[in-house]
């Protein structure tokens, strides 16, 4: 060999220093620029919260990847067997420093992640479905909107507007929305992508999710739970519009669906439609 093998401490030092340098650089880049690229964007207060959350996650994940990459590149290039007869490596079986440090670092990271996630979750429910008795309920007045999933379309009811039901989702801007997601048949999942909302629609269950809209925009709604033949086609677009436009839209829908209004069932957060067993 041309160069004498470095001593053990040097190997360790090189990997640790290299890992830290790359981690710091990558993490700073992620922390500064990550938010711009990370979903689900700034469509709502909840979505912004998720972007923050995703940024934090990525900022924690990045140094792990960077550190391990440095480790593996170093180890795999430095410690390779260079041909000839088999040579055994040093019989290292344990190292309490490495062990303790590793356990401490992973534990602290994990506990931080869980703590941060719980904090974010309890702040405003972060757009997720919380079941019939939500624990993270934002203060203030909210516009209730019911999402009725069926095979294979979402329809929406506005109980405060006489139980108006329509196949389009239009929401007023800068308003807290209380979504009640339920299903008439199979399990669906209501996913308003840019609003950062996801809530499963179960038959006979009222799954509540909260979202505070920001400025006017459009967003995509997709079903995120396999629900049968047309699952892949179960999508539509929704709109967030200014308050006045929203009121006008409600009026037009009310007149549009006036003929059917008296046939709509009384507003209820859950439905138990007859399942029509084979006996029937």
């Amino acid at each position, binding site marked *: 060999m041309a160069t004498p093998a470095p001593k053990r401490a040097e190997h360790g030092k090189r990997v640790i220093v290299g890992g830290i340098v790359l981690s710091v650089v990558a993490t700073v880049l992620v922390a500064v620029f990550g938010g711009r690229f990370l979903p689900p964007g700034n469509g709502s207060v909840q979505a912004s919260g998720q972007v923050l959350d995703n940024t934090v996650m990525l900022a924690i994940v990045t140094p792990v990847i960077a550190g391990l990459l440095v480790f593996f590149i170093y180890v795999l290039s430095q410690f390779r067997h260079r041909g000839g007869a088999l040579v055994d490596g040093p019989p290292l079986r344990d190292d309490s420093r490495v062990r303790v440090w590793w356990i401490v670092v992973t534990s602290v990271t994990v506990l931080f992640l869980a703590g941060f996630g719980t904090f974010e979750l309890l702040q405003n429910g972060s757009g997720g479905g919380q079941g019939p008795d939500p624990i993270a309920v934002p203060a203030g007045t909210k516009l209730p909107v019911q999402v009725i999933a069926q095979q294979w379309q979402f329809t929406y009811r506005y109980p405060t507007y006489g139980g108006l039901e329509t196949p389009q989702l239009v929401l007023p801007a800068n308003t807290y929305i209380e979504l009640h997601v339920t299903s008439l048949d199979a399990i669906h999942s209501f996913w308003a992508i840019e609003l950062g909302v996801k809530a499963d629609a179960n038959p006979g269950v009222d799954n509540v999710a909260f979202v505070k809209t920001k400025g006017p925009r459009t967003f995509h709604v997709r079903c995120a739970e396999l629900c049968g033949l047309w699952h892949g086609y179960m999508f539509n677009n929704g709109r967030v519009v200014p308050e006045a436009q929203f009121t006008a839209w409600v009026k037009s829908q009310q007149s549009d669906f006036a003929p059917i209004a008296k046939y709509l069932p009384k507003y209820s957060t859950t439905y*138990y439609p007859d399942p029509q067993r084979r006996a029937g």
Partner: protein
Amino acid sequence: MTELAQPGADYSIVETEEPEVLSRNLFAAGQLLAGATAFFFLSFLFAYFYLRSLNNAGLWKPKHVDASVTWGTIVMACIVASAMLLRFGRIDHAAGRREAFRLKALVALLLGLAALVLQVLAWHEASFGPTDGGFASVYFGWTAFLFLFVFCTLFWLETVLATSWRYRNDPMGAAVVAPGHASGDPSRTAHDIRNPVELNRASLGALSFYWTFLAGIAVLTWIVLYLI
């Protein structure tokens, strides 16, 4: 390098089944089977309490749905009595009273079969069918699978009884088996069985454990489905 084996050995060399090994294997298997059985019925227990607490559409237990405590008690009592008898029989067997063991095992087998017949009658006499809501579903599902488990365990019990009967004249520890017959290959000169009576004792030990365990499940069934 240590020379552990020569290449090319063929199937003519047969390993013997040592009763102690079988006994340990069956002991471990009995416990594991009990664990698996417990998790199987835990699913039904979970379903019971889950559906009961939800009471969806008010159809957990409509008025006419009520499992008969009388039938349930009789079935459970048969299973428990059978398991207890087998435990006593095992003590007899260990003490060398194999006649007494066979009598107890036979009665235990008949009691088990009686439990199965009575269970079928209980289903037939029930005031409701499987379609009648949450409780009815759990009731029929749970009892049906308990039926299946009991049936399979009775099969095991029968094999122990039958083996004991077949070798009734052989003294413990000295039974003779024709070469190869247990392996299904009459042309093979070596055989893997030397002492069926000892082996049977190992089998009985595990069976007695598992059957008692299953009786415990039957008691749980009785408490959950009939009492509360």
